[in-house]
């Protein structure tokens, strides 16, 4: 079975949520720390809680106000025929359009048969589960035994329970015998017998008291049938089924590390449920090294019988996923919005698994950079600012960089990321107005995106060579020489840009507008810094010059200050 949509009202941090879930096996929720990701999983767990005795308290209500009723609803698809039975829920099917993700009152051609399941909790704290068609229906009861068939389990921070045979645990689902309880009764009897055998050694002191009691009894005329002695009361050694637990040798497996326990539980889950299951995994990465995370996620992907809802804060997890698996949870007061990360421009930029830019999805603020040069340049600036000027690092400010990989994609990507609810800035060249024009920049600014775009239709290389003090120009050229290790080639390129009267003896260069222009153009066309590592190095060299009084007010400084202000929320 698969969950097709979820809506929640007045449950914990959520006052309202409506989420149509795409048809996928893995649904990974990301979002800021208090964005209610875990609450969403908890709501699902409660909606399909396999027993009748689920307790709610006032703290489960939004703002702890039980006068506003909790209502959790899901559309459940991929139904077993047993649920289509008219004696079960055959009178209550609705239709679900997998493409438009809309609910139709009746099933039909091109629609999936689904059930609309509701959990209501009013101020009496009594949960009531039902299946309905229309919102105003009273519906029919959704029985605990049927909720169990949906096989929803939450693997949270503590999942020891699943390594025991307690009711509803995965191990108990795997166990075929019906009379576990009677086996337990014989355990209790065996314990009693064993103690009897050790009576002389272990019970001598107790039996002395028993004899005294017997004497008193006889003296008072209380009928003594045999003789008084100490013994285990079978009621007291009531061995519970939850007491049966998985052991490795003599060690209970609950003593395994958290990550191992969670992995094992997941593996068992797949085995226990020959048919279908829905697994909720809160903070997948907890307790796992990157290679084990990779293994676990591979297991999820290969398991066609399950639907997995994950939450994560880890780029390591994201790197194993596709952008289509990602869903961003936004919170605006109690209003929760879940947005699919798979916007067209983002999907194109990420392509398949999220190898690069995984961090970007986990940060609140994202700078969309035109290309590798800009990414590296900002990294370099971040290093310098943090170490030399003691500013807060990008990481501290929650800023991540996203490589748009071309001026032509900046606008769409920035807009898409903005739609996902992130705070967005753009760092772009202005030398290719056909790819990213001033009008594009203005459109982004209108959408509250901070745009850093150089004046005078210049590239970053041209802008820097134009604006930095002469010392900065020379050290930039030094960096290029070190990177390329081929002075002749660099000078040839400069000669081409400069034209007549080019001086190949760079030690004797003097500051001219022509030379700066030639350097900027050669650096751009020759891709002198067009790798992250290169431009990062370059940035470290010139960052110091940006504080030079002489160039205060130039475009480069002004624009970078603007970007820094955005980073610092000024």
């Amino acid at each position: 079975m698969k969950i097709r949509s979820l809506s929640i009202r007045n449950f914990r941090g959520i006052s309202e949520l409506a989420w149509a879930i795409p048809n996928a096996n893995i649904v990974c929720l990301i979002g800021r720390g208090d964005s209610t990701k875990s609450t969403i999983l908890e709501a699902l767990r409660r909606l399909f809680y396999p027993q009748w005795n689920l307790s709610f308290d006032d703290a489960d209500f939004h703002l702890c106000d039980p006068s506003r009723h909790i209502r959790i609803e899901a559309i459940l698809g991929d139904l077993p025929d047993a649920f289509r039975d008219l004696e079960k829920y055959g009178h209550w099917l609705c239709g679900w359009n997998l493409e438009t993700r809309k609910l139709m009152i009746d099933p039909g051609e091109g629609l999936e048969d689904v059930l609309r399941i509701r959990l209501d909790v009013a101020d009496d704290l009594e949960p009531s589960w039902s299946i309905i068609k229309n919102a105003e229906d009273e519906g029919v009861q959704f029985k605990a035994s049927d909720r169990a068939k949906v096989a929803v389990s939450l693997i949270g921070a503590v999942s020891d329970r699943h390594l025991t045979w307690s009711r509803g645990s995965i191990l108990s689902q795997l166990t075929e015998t019906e009379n576990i309880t009677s086996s337990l009764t014989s355990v209790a009897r065996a314990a009693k017998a064993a103690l009897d055998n050790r009576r002389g050694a272990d019970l001598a002191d107790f039996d002395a008291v028993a004899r005294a009691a017997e004497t008193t009894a006889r003296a008072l005329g209380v009928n003594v049938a045999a003789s008084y002695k100490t013994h285990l009361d079978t009621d007291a050694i009531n061995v519970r089924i939850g007491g049966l637990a998985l052991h490795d040798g003599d060690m209970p497996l609950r003593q395994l590390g958290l990550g191992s326990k969670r992995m094992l539980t997941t593996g068992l889950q797949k085995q226990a449920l020959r048919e279908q299951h829905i697994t909720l995994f809160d903070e997948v990465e907890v307790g796992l090294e990157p290679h084990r995370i990779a293994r676990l996620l591979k297991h999820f992907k290969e398991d066609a019988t399950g639907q997995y809802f994950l939450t994560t804060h880890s780029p390591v997890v994201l790197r194993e996923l596709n952008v289509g698996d990602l869903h961003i949870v936004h919170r605006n007061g109690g209003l929760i919005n879940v947005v699919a990360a798979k916007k067209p421009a983002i999907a194109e930029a990420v392509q398949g698994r999220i190898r690069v830019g995984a961090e970007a999805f986990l940060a609140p603020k994202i700078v969309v950079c035109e290309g590798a040069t800009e990414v590296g340049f900002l990294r370099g600036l971040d290093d310098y600012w943090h170490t030399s000027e003691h500013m807060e690092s990008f990481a501290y400010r929650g800023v991540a960089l996203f490589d748009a990989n071309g001026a032509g994609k900046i606008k769409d990507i920035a807009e898409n990321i903005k739609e996902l609810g992130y705070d967005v800035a753009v760092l772009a060249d202005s030398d290719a107005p056909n790819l990213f024009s001033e009008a594009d920049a203005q459109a982004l600014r209108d959408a509250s995106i901070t745009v850093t775009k150089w004046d005078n239709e210049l590239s970053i290389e041209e802008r820097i060579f134009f604006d930095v003090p002469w010392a900065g120009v020379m050290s930039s050229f030094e960096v290029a020489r070190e990177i390329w290790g081929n002075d002749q080639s660099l000078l040839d390129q400069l000669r081409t840009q400069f034209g007549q009267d080019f001086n190949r003896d760079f030690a004797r260069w003097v500051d001219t507008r022509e030379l700066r222009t030639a350097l900027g153009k050669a650096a751009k066309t020759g891709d002198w810094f067009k790798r992250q590592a290169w431009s990062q190095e370059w940035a470290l060299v010139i960052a110091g010059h940006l504080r030079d009084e002489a160039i205060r007010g130039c475009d480069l400084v002004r624009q970078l200050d603007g970007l820094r202000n955005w980073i610092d929320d000024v």
Partner: protein
Amino acid sequence: MCELSDILAAYRGAGFVMAPAGFGKTHLIAQATAQSSGRQLILTHTYAGVNALRRKMRTLGVGEKLYRIETIASWSLRLALSYSATSGWVSERPADNEQWGELYEASSFLLDHEFIRRIVRSSYDGLYVDEYQDCSTGQHAVVLKLARDLPCRVLGDPLQSLFDFAGQNPIDWRQDVEGSFERLGVLEVPHRWIHAGAGDLGAWLRTIRTRLEQGQPINLNMNLPRVVSVMQSHDDPQSLNRSQGNTCRYFQCDSSHTVIAIHKGSQEYKEKCHILSRNLGGVFSSIEEVEGKALFSFIRKIERARTEEESLREVITFAKRCMTAVGQKLPAGTCRGELVNVRANTRNPFAARAANAYLAASNSATMADFLLALRETAGIEVVRSDLFNRVLSVLRKHLLHPELSLSEAAEKYQGEFRHKGRPVGRRKLIATTLLVKGLEFDHAIILDAASLSKKELYVALTRGARSLTIVSTNPVLTPAD
């Protein structure tokens, strides 16, 4: 019969069984269900039929998970309402045959949808339809659609297809049943009569059945079993009435036995039942049709009455319809709807006081008290106990649910009545062929046998398990089709 139940249980197609009255049809269905794998949907027409099937299932110890018994009407209605966006059906209570016909069309349309067919396949492993001769063509269409997804076995008897009024569109047995379904067998043993110790009556009825099927006359002078007696009457109405009255009045049987006197099923004869029961002064009581027209017309009159006096007069009119001697046993003032002074010499002071109480506060409680006071009066006999008891039940229902209006209480009671079926409390009853169809009695008295059609005659003759008494103006019966 064992073999037949085996055949039915294993059968995967669409077939029919010819099942004459009293030949163990219900037993066959229950037995075949017990042998089937998976849950069977068992459809019939009336709640009485549903109850009879349920009882049989319980008697034979058939597991409850193995069957679902419903009327075709309620099964179709529920499904059409559950998927009203697709079926287009919204009315919770179809009013007449035309609307029921539309409902079956909506259900048939629904059954053409793949999701509904899958629901059907997920819910049942087979289908039985009982009393198939009573199907309308609309119901038959629904069954044919179901038969695409479920093994389908229908049972019925064309000789028992009786219809009340026009617009029901009954199926044609030969064309619709024999044309659509494979013949799986015929029930051969008259279990009802063998069981009652009247095997010779059962055997005789078999020969009568054959004669009726072949359109041959039935000679009541020849070869009658011991338990069949014939009362010959002249064919003028007075003589006929006299012999019918006497036959009923002097009918002798064990006091624990049930007796049914059966009239032809037309409107004219329904009235004759009530007249006869009145003439018999309470020895026999006539039963009403399930719809309860007389009941609702009385309730309407009470609700429309503008004054307490008018209301009391309506109650008295009603009492006179149900009981004998009401007029003579009440003070004249009470009959006029007036408050009367109850003195030592007042006629029937008990009932007169109850009538006064009703005038002072006319409600369901005081009306029930008044009606009961009348019933307790010496010399008053209830002749339409079915109607009388239903009105009392409605009044009780109204007392339990004061939030309802009287007519709402009547609707509620009527709904439950449909489900529970007719309580046959009185031992001696008069009714028409239509009302007794499917019911079983110890003794049957057939009134004016020469007036009955072929099917009516067969239904009437097969109602008594122990004895038959036939009042006829002609010793040779040549019933019309």
